[in-house]
């Protein structure tokens, strides 16, 4: 029996994705459409009759007269014009019952395509609560299509839709209906005939917005929410991170113990397990941050935050919509860069991608902690603050200021000065649904693991190779890494790095540190010929470098780490998301340039002062 293909379409914020989750559960496949970075979500469900449906969740669109890559995809698939995609047997158009004036216009536009379709009248619970009465049969007559009520966020809320699809999918044919030229006038008439609304807005939304969007309280609440979120990310994640690190180390030790001593053992232990562990450890922070982001997004708060911050970000050459991706980048730039897909203007999206690596991601923390503990005295300044904490704070601020400066500079350079639109819908407030948040988290965890394990694995294996071969000659006195390709390259780089105060040990460590920032800590340990767990290395290393490096060198290395793109996975994700090697080259080039400049200035000033 052939499977029926159903396409879900609708305006943004119509609850389409919630309906998709309700219908398909976790049986979803997320990928990209060929050649573009528009997310393709497909799922499948079985109706009570045993009939199997394939469901395609098309990107939300305000119009089929497409202005963004998302809308082009939606239009082309509805028309069956998308190469490599089958024409859907039936279009399910989803509309928010509390927002029909806007959504019916799109329904009529889809209807004009002349394809078999039904209307899913979603969020019927919210509509009833607000006293909105909809005459479903009248609506069916006016629109010339079947209209089914759904509540996507409630278990069983799509039952009527499933039954309807099961019954009618084979017999559905496009029904003719007159679509007038003035679609807005037609919508007004349909609403007058079929819908009674006591008032235009939800009274609760009005009251909440008066507080959350208040010029003073609104910003204060946003600051508190952000502070709480970061506090949670760092304090809740720690035990889980320790657990993962120990787990990976234990499994790695168990596996390597079974291997004979030699190259394979070194590859598995120092290459694969060390590499995997260094990345997996960030999963808890990323998931906690995303838990907050998903809950805030589901509730309708994040667009409000974007509204509050739009002006500041616009002045800096960004947009309020950049707020969410940049926020994610504090955990890790990889999900942050992937989240830029929600930015419609391609120029704003590119700028956001280019500055996202400047947000202080959690991989920088091991390096910052090592250097701060070794060089910055823990004394109290201005009677209130710990100097070590102040330095860490300055490093965070330097990243943010750097991002704003770079974004302004990009705007200054850009030839296309035409206006950037905001035009952002602020949806109604909603209770976040546990199911949607859980599915969202699951999806993000999978994407992160899949991308990062493949990229990190290949990169760590290459770097392992570079730091292992050629092996030291017989009777060698220096640490083995010194004789390897990485060691030789490090010695070459030493000349380049001398003006910014890096000695050859740092130069060598920066090479394996390209895999991920925190790898530089263990690489320094290797160069100084230490062995043991990462914590033990860090503790010994602190003493060694405090004795051997000048303060100017340490500050210079900190400044370097604020900017340097010491993360292959980030560069790989930029490549994937922009489909352009040139953008990757620009990003890597400017970040290394800034890092060198910042380190040079820091080193020279610190040397003069001390």
């Amino acid at each position, binding site marked *: 029996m052939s499977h029926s293909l159903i396409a879900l379409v609708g305006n943004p914020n119509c609850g389409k994705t919630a309906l998709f989750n309700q219908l398909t559960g976790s049986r979803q496949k997320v990928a990209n459409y060929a050649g573009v970075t528009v997310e393709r979500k497909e799922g499948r469900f079985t109706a009570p009759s045993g009939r199997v449906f394939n469901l395609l969740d098309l990107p939300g669109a*305000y119009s089929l*007269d497409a202005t963004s890559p998302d809308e082009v995809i939606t239009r082309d698939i509805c028309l069956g014009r998308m190469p490599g995609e089958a024409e859907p047997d039936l279009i399910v158009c989803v509309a928010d019952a509390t*927002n029909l*004036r806007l959504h019916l*216009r799109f329904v009529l536009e889809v209807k004009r395509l002349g394809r078999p379709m039904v209307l899913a009248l979603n969020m019927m619970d919210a509509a009833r609560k607000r006293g909105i009465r909809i005459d479903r049969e009248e609506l069916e007559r006016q629109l010339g299509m079947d209209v089914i009520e759904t509540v996507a966020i409630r278990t069983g809320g799509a039952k009527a839709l499933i039954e309807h699809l099961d019954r009618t999918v084979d017999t559905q044919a496009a029904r003719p209906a007159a679509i007038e030229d003035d679609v807005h006038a037609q919508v007004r008439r349909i609403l007058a005939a079929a819908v009674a609304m006591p008032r235009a807005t939800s009274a609760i939304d009005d009251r909440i917005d008066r507080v959350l*969007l208040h*010029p003073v309280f609104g910003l204060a609440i946003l600051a508190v929410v952000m502070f709480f979120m970061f506090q949670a990310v760092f304090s809740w994640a720690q035990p889980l991170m320790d657990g993962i690190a120990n787990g990976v180390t234990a499994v790695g030790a168990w596996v390597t113990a079974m291997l004979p001593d030699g190259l394979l053992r070194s590859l598995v232990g120092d290459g694969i397990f060390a590499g995997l562990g260094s990345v997996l450890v960030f999963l808890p922070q990323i998931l906690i941050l995303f838990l907050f982001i998903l809950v805030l997004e589901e509730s309708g708060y994040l667009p409000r935050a974007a509204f509050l911050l*739009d002006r500041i970000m*616009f002045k800096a050459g960004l947009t309020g919509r950049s707020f969410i991706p940049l926020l994610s980048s504090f955990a890790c730039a990889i999900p942050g860069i992937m989240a830029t897909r929600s930015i419609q203007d391609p120029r704003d999206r590119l700028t956001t991608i280019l500055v996202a690596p400047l947000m202080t991601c959690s991989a920088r923390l091991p390096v910052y902690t090592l250097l701060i503990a070794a060089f910055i005295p823990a004394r109290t300044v201005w009677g209130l603050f710990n100097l070590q904490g102040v330095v860490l704070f300055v490093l965070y601020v330097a990243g943010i200021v750097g991002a704003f400066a770079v974004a302004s500079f990009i705007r200054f350079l850009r030839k296309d000065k035409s206006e950037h639109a905001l*035009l952002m819908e602020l949806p109604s407030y909603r209770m976040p649904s546990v199911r949607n948040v859980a599915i969202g988290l699951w999806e993000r965890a999978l994407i992160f693991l899949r991308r990062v394990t493949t990229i990190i694995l290949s990169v760590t294996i290459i770097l392992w190779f570079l730091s292992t071969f050629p092996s030291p000659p017989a009777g060698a006195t220096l640490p083995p890494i010194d004789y390897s390709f990485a060691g030789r390259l490090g010695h070459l780089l030493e000349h380049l790095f001398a003006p910014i105060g890096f000695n050859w040990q740092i130069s060598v460590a920066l090479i394996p540190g390209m895999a991920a920032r925190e790898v530089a800590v263990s690489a320094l340990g290797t160069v100084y010929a230490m062995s043991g767990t990462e914590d033990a290395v860090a503790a010994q290393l602190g003493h060694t470098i405090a004795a051997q490096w000048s303060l100017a060198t340490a500050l210079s290395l900190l400044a370097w780490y604020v900017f340097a793109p010491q993360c292959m996975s980030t560069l790989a994700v930029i490549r994937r998301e922009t489909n352009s090697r040139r953008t990757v080259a620009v990003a890597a080039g400017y970040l290394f340039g800034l890092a060198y400049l910042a380190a040079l200035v820091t080193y020279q000033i610190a040397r003069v002062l001390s």
Partner: protein
Amino acid sequence: MNLSQLSPFTPAVIDEVESVSGNDPIAKRLRELGFVNGEPVRIVARGPLGADPLLVQIGFTRFALRRAEAQRVRIHLAD
């Protein structure tokens, strides 16, 4: 007057959206979103800095528009 000059919570009605150039994608999108003749409109919030962007209630929907976008929308006060 245009929408960027409207005081908060003052009811007004849209006359039309003016294009600032021959092919103005922002004006076109505003019309698609329902900024058309005869539609009641209201400002319900303003951004904390420079009173920008504006939060506009139109029909049952709220849109955040920057001032430059709102300037395209010609309106008159409701009676």
